[in-house]
Structure formats: structure tokens, C-alpha cells
């Protein structure tokens, strides 16, 4: 680990998903004490952050229609690092859990540490955490697999249909350009085709969206897998597939465990 000897620092904090409800006391404290806060969250959350710190800078300005988002993410890191190098106490406030489905927070911490600055991440409440509460599902019951939808399409993944499957960023499923904000029906049909190897087309799947404001309800729409192609979805929509098969017992291991039990109990 690099020896920390410079005055600048970076903490990536989590705002949580819902304004007022989810931010931890330590995240709030970091925001309040920062010299500058870079925000990557819903505009309403940004307004909330502005009540905690006078210098809150939105990183939404780095996004643009038709712009490769890998450039956007690099610009986020560059903006944060520039202030760290200037000796400031910097906070990157990212919505949900700062380290979940977010490239820039991990990268800026890695870079700052490599350059000898103090850097760490504060966890928070992610969309996944909210999903379990709102849908009333427990990942421990059958197991749970999480994939970014495009990654699920680009690579051959071994999925277990006896566990939950959660696909994130389904609105841009199959986007190879990393520039689009929606791919569309043909791409979703291909995703359905991949899923159809494990799930019947009439399998009920949920489309979930976590609310930003406490006055709003979460979106939980159940529909057959086949209808996903034409469903109304956005960048914050997540697809949840409950198990389509029962868990199969591993008789070989159960027999061996029984042997161990006879020996050690």
C-alpha cells in the first residue's frame, strides 16, 4: 500500500436511493466536511446535497447524447482527481451504493491511492437492497444471480434457473456502442431468446424501479417474459426473474455428509 503523505483526499460516499431515508451518518458527515462534493445522482438528491455543502458540483454535465460513456466516466475521475491533487478534501457522492454498478468511484480511489492520497469508500443502500425489501424476496432462499444485462448478452454465462436472476440496465441491453440510452425491441427480443433457454416464455418476471422520493411508490410490474420486448422501461428499470426450476438435491454430497455425520456426531 502506498504511504499516505499528501494533503488531498477522496471519499466516495453513498447517498442511498431515497432522499432523506438512506444516507448513513458517516456519509453525511463526509459531505458536510468536504471542501468540494462531486455528485452523480438524481437532481433532487443533488439539491439535497446542496443543503449540506456549499460546493456541490454535478457530474451530469459529463453525459451527452451520442457520447461514449466510458469517456464520461473518465471525465468524472479526472474532475475528482484534479481537486484531490490541489490538496482538497474531496467527496464523490454517488446514488445508491457508491461501489455498486459504478466504475468511477472504484477507479478514483485506485488512482488516488496509487498517487499517495488518502482514499476510501463508504457503503450505502443500493437499488438491490431496496429491491429485496419492495419485492419481498430473500436472496438467501434460493440464491441470487446479478448481471448487467449487456454483459449477460455479450458473454456466455452459466445461469442457475433454480435461483433468482436479476438483470440490471435492461433498457440498454446489448448496447455495444456504450453511447445509447435505449436499445429497443429487437435487442430485447434477443435477450428474451437467450433467457428462453432457461425460462418458459410465460414465466412471470418483475420490472422494478426504486423511488427517489419518499412520496413515490416503487414500480413493481409483473408480466410474462414474452411481453418484456414491448414493455415500458427506462435506464433505472431492473428485471427480476424468479426461479423457473426446483433446486436439485446433490445426493452424492448428501451421502458423504451423512457419512461424516456418523463419524463426527
Amino acid at each position: 500500500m502506498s504511504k499516505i503523505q499528501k494533503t488531498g483526499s477522496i471519499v466516495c460516499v453513498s447517498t442511498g436511493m431515497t432522499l432523506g431515508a438512506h444516507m448513513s451518518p458517516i456519509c453525511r458527515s463526509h459531505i458536510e466536511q468536504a471542501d468540494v462534493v462531486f455528485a452523480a445522482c438524481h437532481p433532487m438528491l443533488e439539491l439535497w446535497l446542496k443543503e449540506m455543502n456549499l460546493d456541490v458540483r454535478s457530474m451530469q454535465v459529463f453525459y451527452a447524447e451520442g457520447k461514449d460513456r466510458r469517456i464520461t466516466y473518465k471525465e468524472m475521475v479526472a474532475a475528482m482527481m484534479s481537486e484531490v491533487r490541489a490538496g482538497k478534501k474531496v467527496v464523490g457522492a454517488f446514488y445508491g451504493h457508491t461501489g455498486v454498478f459504478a466504475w468511477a468511484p472504484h477507479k478514483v480511489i485506485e488512482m488516488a491511492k496509487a498517487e499517495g492520497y488518502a482514499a476510501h469508500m463508504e457503503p450505502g443502500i443500493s437499488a438491490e437492497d431496496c429491491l429485496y425489501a419492495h419485492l419481498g424476496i430473500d436472496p438467501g432462499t434460493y440464491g441470487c444471480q446479478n448481471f448487467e444485462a449487456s454483459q449477460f448478452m455479450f458473454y456466455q454465462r452459466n445461469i442457475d434457473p433454480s435461483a433468482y436472476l436479476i438483470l440490471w440496465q435492461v433498457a440498454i441491453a446489448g448496447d455495444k456502442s456504450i453511447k445509447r440510452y435505449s436499445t429497443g425491441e429487437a435487442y430485447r427480443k434477443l435477450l428474451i431468446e437467450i433467457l428462453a433457454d432457461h425460462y418458459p416464455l410465460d414465466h412471470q418476471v418483475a420490472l422494478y424501479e426504486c423511488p427517489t422520493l419518499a412520496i413515490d411508490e416503487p414500480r413493481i410490474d409483473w408480466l410474462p417474459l414474452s411481453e418484456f420486448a414491448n414493455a415500458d422501461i427506462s435506464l433505472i428499470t431492473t428485471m427480476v426473474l424468479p426461479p423457473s426450476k426446483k433446486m436439485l438435491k446433490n445426493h452424492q454430497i448428501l451421502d458423504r455428509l451423512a457419512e461424516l455425520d456418523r463419524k463426527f456426531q
Partner: protein
Amino acid sequence: MTAIQLLEKLGANASFNPNHLSKEDKSSIEQAVSTSKTFTAVQLNTQPNDDEETPEENDDDDKESKKEN
């Protein structure tokens, strides 16, 4: 109380009931929500090809990328 302060209280205080908000408070929240800017939620993307180079916007970024690699 500002709209954001009201929303913070609604999120943080279990006994603060949205049904008990005054007409003015409701309208202040509605106005804040309606004037809020658009939001891009995506912060991570899978690269389609492992060996594909990340595009760069300018020379400085290019140097940074080479350092990373």
C-alpha cells in the same frame, strides 16, 4: 421549510405523514420535482470486447489511458 427539507423529513421521519402536508407544501414539492433536470443513471457498462481500446476525448486522456494500461 423548503421542498427539499420537506422531502428529507418525509424520507427520514416515520411519523411525518405526506397526507398532512399543507397545500403550499404540496405545491412547493410538485414545483421542485417538475423543474428538476434530467438524470442519466448509468454509471457502468460492460465493454463488448476485452481487447477494445477505450475511446479517448483528447491527448491528455490518451496519456492517462496509456498509464492505466
